[in-house]
């Protein structure tokens, strides 16, 4: 798949990705389409962000460029420089991926060792990288002795010590707490802006919109199911950037709007989640989160309409947490996503005011009206003499349309909602649904 091009005259391009398509599961149809016809050009001296929800294929794209995944179709071209050497890549992982039985120094030396760099040089280069990344004094520590932030520094040192042209980062800060992530981001940006790292370009995967705007020169917004590049946004704010700068805020809002908007004028609610009818894959969203979001948007500062960016800020939610809740509300006709805002429907505003039993009744009504799978289960239970049905049958039905994991999650979600709404009950021991809970 990887081809090396002769270097074009003036364009300092590093990597050119064209027509990339990849599916999970069965090759040649049937599998879940993760990436569809994705194109991407990486040039020298830029930080490019891949922004999208989980399942939008951004990690798959990153791993394809890293050479860890062989995509089904498409081409990844590494453009050689004037000396004819092709760019090299190196990766930083979300989970740090440190070898617990190797010391910091040994972890950093790993890539050099694989390249058979002689011992002395290996040591010198590794120590230099450790020094650069602010880890000196920890050379002989084992990863388990370090804090999360320190571990990710080791991951970073290990990646840059092999002098890659392109640094790939897979949600590098998302496993860290807010403060640590901020420090690490700032340090990385400082090193990058001062040109102290031997890398030419950075490609970073993130689902944090502010992080993307803070760091990147260019952001590719991915849409899900299948993963496509929905928008490409140049960020020309000067570094260092200020989160409170109005231009910064405006950009963040703009990206929220783009991420909630759907590409074509589709029928209003279908297509929120992949699949249609009973085969719609439902995200794992608890009824408490739904009620919580309704109450939050209904209450005083927002009064029924809230910008998603502000909500995310206020509730300390990542987009991967916030979007599924908001979209579920939309599915149930409790809210409407308009641009970067979420607008509660009159039903939802009433829901916020009433007592528990009325809430349950309202939820049950919405569930049976707008969630086909819930309708389906209820109808089967009504039809059957004993009003019981094995869960297996619905699981099999779902698995005709989606992967077993998705089927399991969808069934769990509908069980959760059905139980809350008291529309049907589920008995785990017997693995079956029933109309009434047998106590």
């Amino acid at each position, binding site marked *: 798949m990887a081809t090396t091009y002769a270097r074009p005259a003036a364009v300092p391009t590093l990597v050119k990705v064209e027509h990339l398509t990849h599916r999970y599961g069965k090759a040649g149809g049937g599998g879940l389409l993760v990436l569809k016809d994705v194109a991407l050009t990486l040039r020298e001296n830029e930080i490019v962000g891949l922004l999208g929800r989980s399942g939008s294929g951004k990690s798959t794209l990153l791993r394809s460029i890293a050479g860890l995944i062989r995509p089904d179709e498409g081409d990844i071209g590494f453009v050689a420089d004037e000396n004819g050497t092709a760019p090299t890549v190196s*990766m930083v992982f979300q989970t740090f991926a440190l070898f*617990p039985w190797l010391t910091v120094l040994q972890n950093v030396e790993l890539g050099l060792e694989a390249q058979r760099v002689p011992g002395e040089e290996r040591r010198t280069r590794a120590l230099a990288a450790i020094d650069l990344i602010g880890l000196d004094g920890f050379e002989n520590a084992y990863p388990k002795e370090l804090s999360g932030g320190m571990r990710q520094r080791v991951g970073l040192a290990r990646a840059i010590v092999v002098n890659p042209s392109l640094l790939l980062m897979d949600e590098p800060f998302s496993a860290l707490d807010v403060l640590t992530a901020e420090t690490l981001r700032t340090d990385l940006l400082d090193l990058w802006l001062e040109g102290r790292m031997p890398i030419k370009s950075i490609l970073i995967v993130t689902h944090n919109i502010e992080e993307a705007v803070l760091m990147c020169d260019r952001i590719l917004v991915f849409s899900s199911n299948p993963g496509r590049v929905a928008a490409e946004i140049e960020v020309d704010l000067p570094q260092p950037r200020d989160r409170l700068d109005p231009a910064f805020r405006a950009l963040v809002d703009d990206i929220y709007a783009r991420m909630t908007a759907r590409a074509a004028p589709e029928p209003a609610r279908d297509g929120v989640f992949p699949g249609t009818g009973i085969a719609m894959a439902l995200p794992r969203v608890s009824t408490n989160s739904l009620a919580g979001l309704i109450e939050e948007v209904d209450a005083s500062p927002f009064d029924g309409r809230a910008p998603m960016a502000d909500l995310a800020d206020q509730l300390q939610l990542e987009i991967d947490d916030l979007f599924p809740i908001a979209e579920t509300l939309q599915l149930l006709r409790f809210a409407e996503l308009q641009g970067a805002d979420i607008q509660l429907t009159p039903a939802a505003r009433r829901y916020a005011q009433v007592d528990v039993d009325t809430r349950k009744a309202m939820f049950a009504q919405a569930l049976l009206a707008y969630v086909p799978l819930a309708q389906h289960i209820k109808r089967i239970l009504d039809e059957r003499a004993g009003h019981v049905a094995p869960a297996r049958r619905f699981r099999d039905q779902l698995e005709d349309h989606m992967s077993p994991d998705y089927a399991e999650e969808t069934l769990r979600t509908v069980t959760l909602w059905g139980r809350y709404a008291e529309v049907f009950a589920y008995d785990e021991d017997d693995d079956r649904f029933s109309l009434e809970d047998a106590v």
Partner: protein
Amino acid sequence: MSNMPQTARGVRSFSRLLRVTPAPSWADAVAFLLLAGAAILIIGGAEGMSEPLARLNIAPVTLDPWNLPGYALRTTLRMFAALGASLGFTFVVATLAAKSKRAEMVIVPALDILQSVPILGFLTFTVTFFMGLFPGRQFGVELAAIFAIFTSQAWNMAFSFYQSLRSVPTDLEEVSRGFALSPWRRFIRLELPFATPALVWNAMMSMSGGWFFVVASEAISVGNTRIMLPGIGSWLALAIDRQDFRAVGWAVGAMAVVILLYDQFVFRPVVAWADRFRFEQTASQVAPQSWAYDLFRRARLLPVLFSPLTGFGRLMMAIDRRPARVPKARSNAKPNPMGQAAWLGLVAAALLSAAWLVIGYVASHLAWRDALDAFALACLTMLRVLVLIAIASVIWVPIGVWIGLRPRWAERLQPVAQFLAAFPANVLFPFAVIAIVHWRLSPDIWLSPLMVLGTQWYILFNVIAGASAIPTDLREAAGMFGVRRWQWWRTLIIPGIFPYYVTGALTASGGSWNASIVAEAVSWGSEHLEAHGLGTYIAKATTAGDFPRVTLGIAVMSIFVTGFNRLLWRPLYAYADRRLRLA
């Protein structure tokens, strides 16, 4: 932690060792003495192995206590030789199974069955083979004994290694592919370290199991001649023949000392060392402790001790000069369906012909009646195993819970339970025989407890572990609401210990099946006691050299044990995993 040996830096550490330290510490002296002593013992013991077979007639095994340390040494060396062989087998076979889909298809089911097959029954087949390899030398018999021990150790080690290789964390796997580590480097840097803790644990379990067989495999009958290799097993066999009560006592004592020694000097240090390979990235609350390990570490002897390992690694890395290339993508390609079908066909054909061979062999010598007999006897043995596991559970579960809920006691008694599990119970059989003969008890009933004598401890120490893992907040909640007696057991303790109990009971029942071969037919001098069961059937057929019956007996027992695991323990295990997992 910072001065631990590093796999690829043996030489550097060695030079540090040679550097003259200001004043040699007491730790240096003690550690040096220990090492020198061990070296002399190993060389001395190994010399005896290469002597001609005839020497055994000139210097037969005698019941002189002065000889006992020497015998104990020979026995221990056999154990470790077998352990080495098991390790070699594990690395080759398990790696093959993990890397090749086709090999996996054959190896994994085979290991699964071999794990639960009565190994003692194989003894008859192998001795003849190995003696043929080195006619007239002790070495052939030694190899046969070592092989017998090996067959009791290798399977679960290989299985654990295979499972570890299959569950290497994805992100580390991606790092090694991203840096294009060569297969060798990947094995040494990633797969071997990751698999080490589970492998060490299984090696310890194997070692315990091995003791049981060492006793049975040192005194070997071939046709009319009986060969007794110098060792504790032969000593014991001789003591039983001569009804020498005191000699049996000496053997028990020697065994206890040996087990204590290798536990303190080999396994504990290794466990303490292997702790660093645990994959959890958080520091463990209670790191395994070993005074010997601390001693070696203080004396900076660790690099030397582990130099065979590190040296091997360095050698492999030195040979492996191929520089890194581009990362290797995870292959999405389907295996060639034609090749796959051909392979399947080949395996099926081999299986069928093997089955044909075995059935044909047995059928040409035996009638249907024999199969029915064996089956009925197997049912008897099964009844024994079930009843005994139940009785052992009733006794040890409450005791284990009591201990487990008291951390101070658990800490002290857990190693004792593990020691008891390692102790070869067949050494104690003569005492039972004497008692049964003395009070004229029914062997059918009173020989049965011998089957669980050695294996009941697995129930105990697993229950202790389970009870101490019950979260304090659950216990406090139960206490606050006044949950007592039966409700306390039903809602808190039994669900809490259940997964652990199942593990223990599974091990105990498997061990008991195996033990039935030696426990159902026991002798004391001229007294021979027999209980009706499949164990006796196999044991008698083995003594009589009746190969068809041995084959039939082993086959029936294998079917029972495998069926037992599939129909009883696996479902229980799955249930515990699904419903009773804490957190």
